[in-house]
């Protein structure tokens, strides 16, 4: 009876999934396949000619990694390293700060008042258009006259106005700071939810055993938050690898000396600016895709919940056994 019902309704499953599938095929799958294909071809220039496989099909990929004539690493590799660096330098303090705040806001002995206010304020930068934030910070950090330069001179930290846009480290640091500033509130909210989800009895039991604040954090909060931290890590990494709006719109605009050019900016500049190397940009985006897949698989593997994996395996075996039994009956 039950089985017949499932069979008769299954066509609606397909039917209801069709709109998603069609949109996915047109707007995601086709573009990805197209990128994979043209990475090996001569598809370039304002009006690309007939699609032809290159004599050396890997030419575009090789170019990405070939050293510049000056002997420096390629622009692509530099963009990759810039992206990785700017993501890491923003993510590590972001996670640390968020963990700290989450632990404080969920402390069961000391209630922090005004939490609601702090959460709302810390999350605020995340909601504002990245383009607006980039232009705002460009204006705030203007040289020689700008609010930050004025402030730093007023306090006495600086004697002369400092040009943030012509200094590699400062330009990078600004982007890293903005990323961190925009995202720690979000990460904090996520982690607070994770800590609240921990069974309070575990904390109580550890307190009876005499565990202090630090021990509780280290031995209960951190391990329990692991899956959520992995989730945050992976989403932040994917976001980090597509970092575009802010570095592109900062006054430094990828400079000085390409120090703040990200992978997405490299792809954009290669494809949509003269001489329109669509094929090379496609090759770069494929490499980016592969990097993301590798890194996230490694992360998932490293941070996987071993017990849960074991349980899932056992459950599967159990299901199989049951199915066999049913068949036997």
């Amino acid at each position, binding site marked *: 009876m039950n089985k017949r019902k499932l069979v008769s309704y*299954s066509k609606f499953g397909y039917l209801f999934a069709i709109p*998603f599938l069609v949109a996915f095929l047109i707007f995601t799958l086709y573009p990805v396949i197209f990128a994979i294909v043209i990475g090996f071809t001569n598809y370039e220039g304002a009006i690309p000619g007939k699609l032809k496989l290159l004599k050396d099909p890997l030419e575009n990929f090789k170019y990405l990694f070939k050293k510049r004539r000056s002997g420096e690493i390629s622009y692509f590799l530099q963009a990759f390293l810039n992206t990785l660096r700017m993501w890491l330098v923003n993510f590590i303090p972001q996670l640390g700060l968020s963990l700290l705040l989450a632990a404080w806001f969920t402390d069961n002995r000391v209630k922090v008042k005004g939490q609601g206010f702090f959460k709302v304020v810390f999350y605020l930068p995340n909601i504002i258009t990245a383009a*607006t934030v980039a232009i*705002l910070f460009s204006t*705030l950090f203007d040289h020689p006259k700008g609010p930050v330069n004025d402030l730093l001179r007023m306090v006495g930290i600086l004697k002369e106005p400092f040009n943030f846009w012509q200094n590699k480290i400062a330009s990078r640091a600004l982007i890293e700071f903005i990323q961190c500033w925009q995202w720690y509130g979000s990460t904090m909210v996520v982690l607070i939810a994770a800590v609240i989800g921990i069974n309070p009895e575990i904390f109580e039991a550890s307190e009876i055993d005499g565990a202090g604040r630090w021990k509780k954090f280290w031995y209960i909060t951190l391990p329990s938050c692991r899956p959520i931290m992995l989730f945050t890590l992976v989403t932040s990494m*994917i976001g980090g690898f597509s970092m575009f709006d802010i570095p592109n719109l900062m006054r430094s605009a990828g400079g000085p000396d390409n120090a703040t050019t990200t992978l997405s900016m490299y792809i*954009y500049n290669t494809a949509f600016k003269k001489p329109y190397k669509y094929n090379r940009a496609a090759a770069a985006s494929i490499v980016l895709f592969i990097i993301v897949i590798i890194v996230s698989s490694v992360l998932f593997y490293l941070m996987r919940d071993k017990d849960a994996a074991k349980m899932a395996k056992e459950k599967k075996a159990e299901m199989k056994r049951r199915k066999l039994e049913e068949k036997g009956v």
Partner: protein
Amino acid sequence: MASNDLIRSTKDSEVALKSRKKDAVVFLTIIYVICTILAILSLWPFVCMLINATRDTESIMANAVSLIPGDHLKVNIDALKKITTFNAKTGMKNSFIISASATILTVYFSSLTAYAIYAYDWKLKKAFFGLILGIMMLPGTVTIVGFYRTCYKLHLTDNKLMLILPAIAAPGVVFFMKQYLEGALSMEIVESARIDGAGEFRTFNTIVLPIMKPAMATQAIFAFVGNWNNYFLPMILFIKQKNYTMPIMVSLLNGDIYKREFGCIYLGLSTTALPLIIIYLLLSKYIISGVALGSVKG
């Protein structure tokens, strides 16, 4: 003897209590100091922006940091109106059309897709769900070259539709909706609707959708904000000025000849940020609980 012990132990616990109280005070002080600094960091750029939007360029040049609003708001508004690439009315209209349409598509079709996965048993379901999980990991830049080509082939490069239609396939939202359905919808309700003779599609629209309202509201907020803030795609696709969205207009404030008109730039920035700040303050409760929910379920 015994009473002596009792006295001593209460004394000990009193001492412990006192030291614990002292510890709590120190702990709280540290927390409040750091949180206050962070709050100032979060707010100051926006406060500075709003105040400077009311000041004239000369006084901003003399001293860019001020807590007192100026009286040049009107002058700045007039100056901003003269910037041809910045038209707040057109920008807001375009941004709203795109964001609202995309949000409706995302929320509706993601619910439908999630329902297809949750309520029915079909052969390729597992593969389909795997696909959805897989594309959640796809960085947006990977598809851009091919996406542009698609738009080009369809002769829709300078068309708002290309920012709206892709919203039908939003893997992250489908995933969230499916998780929500698992907790909120029991198949018995659907079964009873079937017995009453309702069609499957009607059942979805009249019975399932109302149950999903809370999840839809949460996802709608994020979809709307995400689309509103999108800069990358419209920047690549749109050439005609009449299609420009707010983020594009604000990005052009940077390189305009009016660059020196600081009051005007700050005002332009304020017009893009202020609506978002107000909406955020009104909806902050839902937004923040939505952030928490999305992660725990995800």
